């Protein structure tokens, strides 16, 4: 765990790829991509559906440890239309029933066509960014304002390279110039996009059970 304070907001960056905001009693995750395995299966690529269970299991464990009042999902909860099948939806609904948490979804680009199709998830969905005090939650990065933008979508990773070593690690990416904190993707079967460290950014890389800040 790593505590930071951005624009007066205290944030706990968790190595489980989530952020906890104590003041709001809110847990944040982004880019879960449930049903990605099933989407691939339909195209003839055998990815085991156990990746959904592993992802959900991690979310469940995290919720019972942190005990947040609210779970804010910053988009891309489901991967595609083909993801909305019983093997995916049932465990998800089971999670909603058993975990005592209010779920708020900001609809992501992968979710957008699904909002209608998926119907009733007993969660509240928002297709636009949500402003809470000094924080603006969104799926895709927002243009800079005086508020802190916390978003997903990018799946940030940093590459660390010397002649001796070469590592690629998921990270929380904070850009001071843009007032923006991007979360790593939460889902098990999700890739990463390499972001470059600049003089006005910090990457909080996730290494085993630690979060380590890196800046230039």
């Amino acid at each position, binding site marked *: 765990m790593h505590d930071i304070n951005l624009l007066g907001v205290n944030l706990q960056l968790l190595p489980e790829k989530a952020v906890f905001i104590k003041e709001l009693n809110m847990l944040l995750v982004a880019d879960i991509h449930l049903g990605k395995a099933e989407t691939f299966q339909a195209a003839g690529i055998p990815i085991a*559906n156990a990746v959904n269970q592993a992802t959900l299991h991690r979310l469940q464990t995290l919720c019972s440890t942190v005990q947040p009042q609210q779970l804010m999902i910053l988009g891309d909860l489901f991967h595609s239309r083909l993801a909305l099948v019983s093997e995916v939806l049932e465990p998800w609904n089971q999670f909603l029933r058993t975990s005592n948490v209010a779920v708020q979804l900001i609809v992501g680009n992968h979710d957008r066509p699904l909002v209608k199709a998926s119907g009733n998830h007993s969660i509240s969905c928002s297709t636009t960014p949500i402003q809470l005090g000094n924080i603006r939650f969104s799926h895709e990065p927002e243009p800079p304002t005086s508020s802190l933008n916390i978003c997903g979508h990018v799946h940030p990773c940093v590459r660390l390279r010397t002649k*001796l070593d070469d590592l690629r690690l998921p990270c929380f990416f904070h850009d001071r110039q843009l007032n923006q904190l991007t979360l790593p993707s939460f889902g098990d079967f999700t890739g990463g996009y390499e972001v470059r460290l600049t003089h006005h950014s910090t990457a909080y*890389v996730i290494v085993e059970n630690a979060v380590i800040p890196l800046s230039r």
Partner: protein
Amino acid sequence: MPKTSAPSVSDRPSLQPIVHWFKTQGWQPLPFQLETWNAYLSGKSGMIQVPTGAGKTYAAVMGAIADMLHTPSKGLQLLYITPLRALSRDIEQSILRPIQEMGWKLRVESRTGDTSSSRKTRQLKTMPDLLITTPESLALMLSYQDAKQRFESLRLVIIDEWHELLSSKRGTQTELCLSRLRELQPTVQTWAVSATLGNVQEAAQVAVGLNHEPVIIQSHLKRETIIKSILPASVDSFPWAGHLGLRLFETLVEALDINTSTLIFTNTRSQAERWYQALLFAMPDHGDRIALHHGSIDVKAREAIEAGLKAGQVKWVVCTSSLDLGVDFQPVEQVVQIGSAKNLARLLQRAGRSAHVPEGRSEVLFLPTNALELLEISAFRNGLKAGDIESRSPLQKPYDVLIQHLITLACGDGFKPDETLQTLRQTVSYSTLTNDEFAWILEFIESGGQCLGAYPRYKKVGLIDGSYQVTEPQIARMHRMGIGTIASHQAVRVVYTNRKEIGTVEETFVSRLKKGDVFFFAGRQLEFFMMKDMVAYVKGTTQKSTVTPSWGGGNLTISDSLSTHLRHEIETAQQDNALNRELNCIRPILTAQQRLSHLPATNELLIEVCQTREGQHLYVFPFAGRFVHEGLGFLWGYRFANQKKTTLAISVNDYGFEILAPKNYPFYDLFSDTFFELKSLYDDIKASMNISELTQRRFRSIAQVAGLVFKGYPSAKKTAGQLQVSSSLIYEVFSKYEPNNLLLKQAEREVIEHQLEFHRLANTLARLQSLKVVWRVTKRPSPLAFPLLVERLSSRLSNETLLDRIERMKQMWDDK
């Protein structure tokens, strides 16, 4: 091998038209041509092995054409497979010549990736009598229904340039397609055409399949190959390392004549780009007579260059292996090889481009690009003298190629498992395919895998009336787009803003460009404008830049036979007498090596250690070729790390390898005789793979061939986005949820057998065991070590925790 009856024309009245046409050309059929025709006409299959330009095309096709004239029939009768679609036009021309001149009623067409789709559709309905195609296009044809009718009249399949395909996955794919054709049309005959190979019998057997006895036809043409070198006045002009040595371009220009047609071969596309730039600079008045030719340049531009060369307008062509093959380049008078060709067979092939008459002398000018390559020149000469030509072996049952093939069949007429297994076992590659392996593969394509209930939505092939079939049109469409076994990085088309095509570069290169950046590609200065939908838009510019794209792809390694000669050269170079020009030239560098460190004799193994800002370096010089060095580097790396946990970076070249460790890593203290231990070799190599990314990297191309990742679809962008995934992610998921997946096993096997060359590794280790180890601590890298120090490609091995690694990197970061 079985003897064929003595060639005689009168035996075969059907050959009369052929001999007649030869007469009109003022030609006499050569003995090997007659021999091939007779063997074909008596129902045999086999392989022709003759030098390039000796008349192999007519040897291969004329027997069948005689037969087709004698007993005419309808439909596709002759299938001609060539590895390069650029060659298909030339082959079509030379086959058409007698047909048109004699007015024979035979239709000849090509079918490759360049053929228009309307023509392809027409061909599927009505096949020509003779069809020229590539392995990939043949596989595609098998993915359409009614293959039985399409191929029922087939008499002969010719596989040209078989040595190029043989030991690659494309070769395996060809073998599989041939086995299917033999299943559809059991009397079809097969003839392969190959350049010089070390393992002729095996190559022929792979081509004809296991239930045929191949006839082998070799010409007795003697061809002499002479290697001359272009040397600078002083060795100071040579870089110790690197690939360019462009400083020598003036010496090269002096050695050549702009009126002599010349092929200038380089080993990589980026070298070709740079040499072309240098030659243009040296010959500003002859820009229109110098051209650049490599596989990433637009097809039309390449064809224009080939035509220009034939017509004599273009005189010098800087090229890569893109011009290794080819039918008739009559006008080529001079061949230049820049940098080591790395193996004798390739050098012979290239040298052969300059002597396209059956008997003749080929000569190649060799321009070394770094000092150590000087040693290779005389190693090459000695290798040629000894007749050490390398063998190329077929691959052992790669599962990915089989999976692709089976789905191809399922897209077409479908396949019955039992019959198909019988057919597969008639190929050399899959002759040892076990029932369990086959059952696993069937399960993999039918239900996703053996992990029970893991793939409820899986759809690919289904079993309908005892036959496996693809029923979803979308899946068949996606599969057809992915047919082929050439693993490539994502290619980006380079196009002028007015939409004129220039060629392709790798995405990783383009992703580093910013608007306004200038780079040199296809022989032009280009300014990057923007990237959209996998197309990089550029504008011409007069600004100069030396940035050239680089392309990934196999590193060449010196062959086993060459490395033996190389070690002798080092020994010879130390003697005062018997020096040739090249060894004389490199002498000052070897003296420096002796002064700064040590020059190893053949009974010594030199190991150097050296500390720099980057860490502790260990250099070892077995002179055994880069693949073996990679194997040794990983083996020793593991044996070090096993004693003291660490992270190591391993770099290799043909002379030795480097192991880089963190500062003060005690290499000397940890080293012992057990490093030469053969007993635990296999286990240690396996263990080293577990703490490195070798297997995962190897999996990349396997995932592509097996259809697990897609290179993208031109028409269905949305679907593509949802299916975008890196092979490393798939590798992780497979390793976690289905560790017994055969494709993972294949990746491991490929690393051990092909990348680390396990069989050569054991021999090398046994040889090293008998050597005297000479340790030297150097203040800075020696001449032998320097090329390894600047080598940018390295692989890693680590048994430390991520946290330790991050902490060290952070430290180095903070020190900067």
